[in-house]
């Protein structure tokens, strides 16, 4: 099925700009809180704030997709990317942790 880009009503401009900014801000908050907990700057229970940020990120992305009237396939791909982003900091932290242990055996941070 051919898909054509839809017109966006002027009233949707502000929610689009705000939600797209929040996509990045919540994305940063997720990675930031996750990291602060992992390096023991924040208590462990702040990990819930990290995951809440990720949830807000995914919600904002979904809302943004709706406002932009993206085609259904792209909507699914965007949500898939959000799942990937949930895993991403875990993977990076895991790799960095292993690397530190390999090159600095006394490092148990």
């Amino acid at each position, binding site marked *: 099925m051919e*898909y*054509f*880009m*839809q017109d*966006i*009503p*002027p009233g949707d*401009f*502000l929610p*689009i*700009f705000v939600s*797209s*900014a929040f*996509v*990045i*801000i919540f*994305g*940063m908050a997720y*990675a*930031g809180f*996750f*990291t*602060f907990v*992992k*390096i*023991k*700057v924040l208590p462990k229970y702040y990990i819930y704030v990290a995951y809440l940020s990720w949830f807000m990120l995914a919600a904002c*992305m979904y809302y*943004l997709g709706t406002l*932009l*009237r*993206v*085609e259904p*396939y*792209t909507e699914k*791909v*965007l949500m898939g*990317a959000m799942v990937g*982003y949930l895993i*991403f*900091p875990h993977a*990076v*932290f895991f*790799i*960095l942790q292993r*690397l*530190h242990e*390999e*090159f*600095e055996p006394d*490092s148990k*941070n």
Partner: protein
Amino acid sequence: MWSSNARLYESQKIAVKYFTVAVALFGAQLLFGLIAAIQYLYPSFLFNTLDFSIARMVHINALVVWLLYAMIGSVYWLMPEETGIDVVGAKLANLAFYVLTAAVAVVVVVYIFVQVGPGNEMTTWLITEGREYIEAPRWADIGIVVVVLIFLGNVYATVIKAQKRTGIMTVLMADLLALAGLYLCGMFYTSNISVDQYWWWWVIHLWVEATWEVFVACVGGYMLMKTLGANRQVVEMWLWIEVAMMFGSGILGLGHHYFWIGTPEYWWEIGALFSALEPVPLVGLFVHVLYDWGKERGKGNNIKNTPAFAWLTVETFGNFLGAGVWGFMHTLPQINLYTHGTQWPAAHGHLAFFGAYAAILIGMFYMAVQGKHGIKEMRMSTATKWSISLITGGVLIMTVSLTLSAYVQTMVERGQFGATWEGYFISQAQVWFVQGLGWRLAAGLAVFVGFVLLVYDLITIAKKQKAVAAEAEAEAVPA
């Protein structure tokens, strides 16, 4: 500006020259930006003497050229430390520096005093090619290629001759080849503007969205090791992730602009998705910086150069805000249809260029000052703090002001009037639009004051550090 009392490699002496010209061009960029900002509010200012089109052209070309000067300087600075040997062709590198600087000076003088020509081959060859961001005339274009080939030749020959090759240098070699090669795409000239713009695209957009991002990742890695003592293996491992993601997301993410040049629609969706992923490497870099900081804090591992580290921090957040938040707000194709050509790209561009590139390269100026004067631990002076605050705060306010103007423009010109000339002029007269540009000018003045303090600091900080160190030493000696 640079008094010599520390032993430097020839390569680093060349780097200092590049940095010095970069600072001067940075000043020119800001000055012409101020003139253009005044002309936006008061169109008769310098009318028929230095028109807006020329002030804007010098403003954005000076930006690109000073960043390239600082990038070349950064490579010449870090290369001997990364390879263990001096640059192979120092004389040739020096010659190329003087040739490039003379050419840039001639081009700028022509821009200011000649400005426009009859719009034929002569204009293209001698005045300007008219391609935004890379408007050098054809003769200078060819000269730049020669100078860059000398630079590339020096980097490759030095690394090949050296016994050791670090990950940073390996990534840099690949990145510089792509960076230099892309410039050639901007040298095509066709009478079809769509085809011409297509080729132009590859230069500036793949520069900023791929090769420059990888470049600053390399320089950032070097600075993290030098200022924080970060583990090389960790930095280099992260560098490879950065390279893979930046090339992937940066190149495919370009598709979010393609509907302007008539490519198939699937490119829009590919571009939308991958441009959304562009901030991911930036978040990764942030994770890395925090991880290393958390690991090292409390172990007596002092930051070796606090001004450079402060600018690196500005880079991390500026990159995230400018390229990430402001980029994502308006670059998805569905919304870019309405924002393209308004003040949105200006808002995004000011913070992204500053955050992603200018900040880290200013940090490299401080690395060079430290190395030049042989200072083990360099601390921020009052001027450092004021210049960082004024420049960063100024750019942030400028970005927010432009965003407010852009929002009004998008709503009125594009949303209500459907991108007509009538809509354009009505939006330009909106009170919020004009007020936003007023705040932009005020913020620009703050940035310029910050720049003056930055230059003062770069000249004096080493002397002040030595005086403080000597005083402390004198106090430590028992009477």
